[in-house]
């Protein structure tokens, strides 16, 4: 049985209180140095599902690393400590929290969700040369020298789901896109899906961009279904659950594709397993057998998944593994640099032309869109719900798609007024 976003927020409030104290999760060995990594994320409020699970995931990874004796960087052995701050997706607090982490806790890297909160901290972060990670590739600008996106390249990877859909369901000819009208998540994702559908030869018959004040999704779904789309696309929607409920109640029989499908077990509980089966999205559970294949750069994903769900059975979301993946990338960079200092680590990370991306080898990308090659793109999984469980179907190359079709994506980004600076 799953929980809703609001239940998640309520249930994890206590967790946020504990987490916001930034207490180290274990006592470190005597003589061992400690390197602090910051997590300046939303742990309360509407964005909490894209923050707090990441903190829980990092605690699992850090506990494992520290229990194994820490990491050797240069000639020194380090334990890792996570310092967290709940900014609740408020940019003022995000800036305050960021500065507090850097100036009072001496963190060597700060992991963030992305969007306006990252935009707010970066002028200061760049002047102070503090390495920062985001999950939104579109946060990159020509000025953000110290900002990198090494695990998630939102929303670029969405193209792989559409590509897979078109190949495996050639009967699909039309699609409708529904999402929230925010520039950071919704519009970026809508533009990417439009580009992917065009490349795949699928006509977009409707785009419904709604505000955050919608409480009744019935009229939205009705008006979209009136266009008779073969595919219903939820582009990074904050409202997957109510949209899926409406699709179910209004008897939709076509294909469904989405960026995320967080808490899909809750959707199944509210609709039916048969209805949700076949839904395509982009974020795997980490007990997926395909994550044990060669080339996956995440240690013991099944073990990670089990530990996470043991401590936080209802809290897994798309970001649960992404912040840990950023942390693991930083460790590799620090090892290569032989230093924990941000400038050295960034230099080492950038000098690797084919960095180890979580789902295989990646490459730095982004200059032609956002003015800097600061996003690692590689292959990305296409996930489909089968018998009530998310399962990776195959990996497809985001990098390859961008090589061929970046101009199409740029066209749609510009049509939504989104920033293309490259």
């Amino acid at each position, binding site marked *: 049985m799953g929980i809703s976003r609001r239940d998640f927020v309520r249930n994890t409030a206590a967790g946020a209180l504990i987490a916001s104290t930034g207490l180290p999760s274990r006592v470190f060995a005597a003589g061992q140095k400690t390197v602090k990594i910051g997590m300046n994320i939303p742990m309360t409020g509407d964005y909490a599902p894209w923050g707090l699970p990441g903190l829980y995931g990092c605690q699992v990874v850090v506990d494992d690393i520290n229990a194994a004796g820490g990491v050797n960087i240069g000639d020194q052995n380090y334990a890792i400590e996570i310092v967290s701050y709940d900014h609740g997706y408020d940019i003022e607090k995000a*800036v305050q929290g960021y*500065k507090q982490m850097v100036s009072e806790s001496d963190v060597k890297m700060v992991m963030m969700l992305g969007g306006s909160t990252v935009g707010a901290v970066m002028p200061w972060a760049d002047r102070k040369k503090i390495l920062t990670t985001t999950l939104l590739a579109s946060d990159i600008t020509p000025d953000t020298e110290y900002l990198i996106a090494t695990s998630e390249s939102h929303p670029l990877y969405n193209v792989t789901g559409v590509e897979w859909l078109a190949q495996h369901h050639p009967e699909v000819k039309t699609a409708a896109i529904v999402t929230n009208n925010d520039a950071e998540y919704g519009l970026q994702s809508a533009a990417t899906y439009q580009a992917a559908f065009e490349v795949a030869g699928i006509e977009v018959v409707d785009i419904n961009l709604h505000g955050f004040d919608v409480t009744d999704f019935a009229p939205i779904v009705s008006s979209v279904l009136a266009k008779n789309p073969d595919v219903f696309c939820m582009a990074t929607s904050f409202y997957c659950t109510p949209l899926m409920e409406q699709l179910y109640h209004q008897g939709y029989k076509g294909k469904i594709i989405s960026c995320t499908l967080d808490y899909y077990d809750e959707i199944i509980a509210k609709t039916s397993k048969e209805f949700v089966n076949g839904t395509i999205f982009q974020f795997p559970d980490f007990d997926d057998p395909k994550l044990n294949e060669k080339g996956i750069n995440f240690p013991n994903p099944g073990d990670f998944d089990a530990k996470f769900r043991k401590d936080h059975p209802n809290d897994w979301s798309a970001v649960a593994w992404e912040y840990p993946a950023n942390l693991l990338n930083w460790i590799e960079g620090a090892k290569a640099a032989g230093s924990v200092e941000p400038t050295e680590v960034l230099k080492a990370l950038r000098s690797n032309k084919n960095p180890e991306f979580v789902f295989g080898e990646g490459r730095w990308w982004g200059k032609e869109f956002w003015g800097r090659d600061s996003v690692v793109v590689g292959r990305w999984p296409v996930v489909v719900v089968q018998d009530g469980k998310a399962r990776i179907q195959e990996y497809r190359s985001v990098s390859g798609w961008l090589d061929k079709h970046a101009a199409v994506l740029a066209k749609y980004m510009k049509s939504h007024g*989104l920033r293309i600076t490259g």
Partner: protein
Amino acid sequence: MNKKNILTVQNVVWAAILLAALLATPHFLKFYHQDLLIYLTINVLVVCSYRLVTLTGEWSLIHAVMMGVGAYTASLLFIHFGLDMWFTLPFAGGAAALIAALLCFPLLRMTQFYFLIGSFAAGEAIRLTWIEFVGVFGGTGGLRGVEAPILWGIDFIDPIPYYYLSLFIVSVCLFILYRIENSRVGLTLHAIHWKAPLAESVGVNAWRYRALAFIVGSFFVGLAGGLKVHYLGSVSPNQMGIGFMVFILIWVIVGGYNKFYGPIIGVIVLTVFDESIRTFEVLRPAIYGAVLILSVLFLPLGLESIPGRLRSWFGVGSTPHEPPLTDQ
């Protein structure tokens, strides 16, 4: 009219102590709280400029959006024309004043509750413009990359220099606002508040004075918006929404609005209180609600009335009275 001489020895000594305390405070604070001090300083200007609008008896819900107008103006000028803060600040205030001047025509045809609702609607219209015109205003993500200036080797991105700069600008603005309130114009605003028909019967153009208060108040809060965005680095529509407006109202109501310093006390006390309950993030709205209800029930004249109440309890002076809410 009897003019009080404020330049007494006692006042000068108190002012010197206050100034010394304001200058020394950041040096005793950690980085995080230095930041908070800057926002607090700017918010003092926000509440004092709001008080000017309320002097005529009209409470608006557009003040936070006017701050946003200033912040967006400063951001656009910095991003597109590379103008430094020294040049963007006057434009920030000017743009907010201009918008306020245009809004006077529809809004000031209404009074009291209707003005309140009308100002909210106008503010939402402006805020939705920022959200819908993504190419110009950046949509929900807003504008980013606005920087603090560097002058004579001083990097104002650091909190202490920016605090001193904010303190200076806010002090000058407060002095002007104080002078306005204590001038003939200020007395006329008070007269319109308490006895508008009487004031109009002796030839006072109430509409014009209400417009003046609205425009001047908007100018100063626009300037505050510019001051804030150059430190914060970015602005988004959510920052300047009804949520922040409610905070402004609570600061003013809890502090008290019958005296110039009432809202200042409100914003200082509640900012410190707010920070002390930061760990209880999810409970903050409820706690704020409780504070507001308790304040209205037990301190209807706000924190500013506490000294008077204490004096009356000790038998020195009379209990402060609440002025009537309307002139009817």
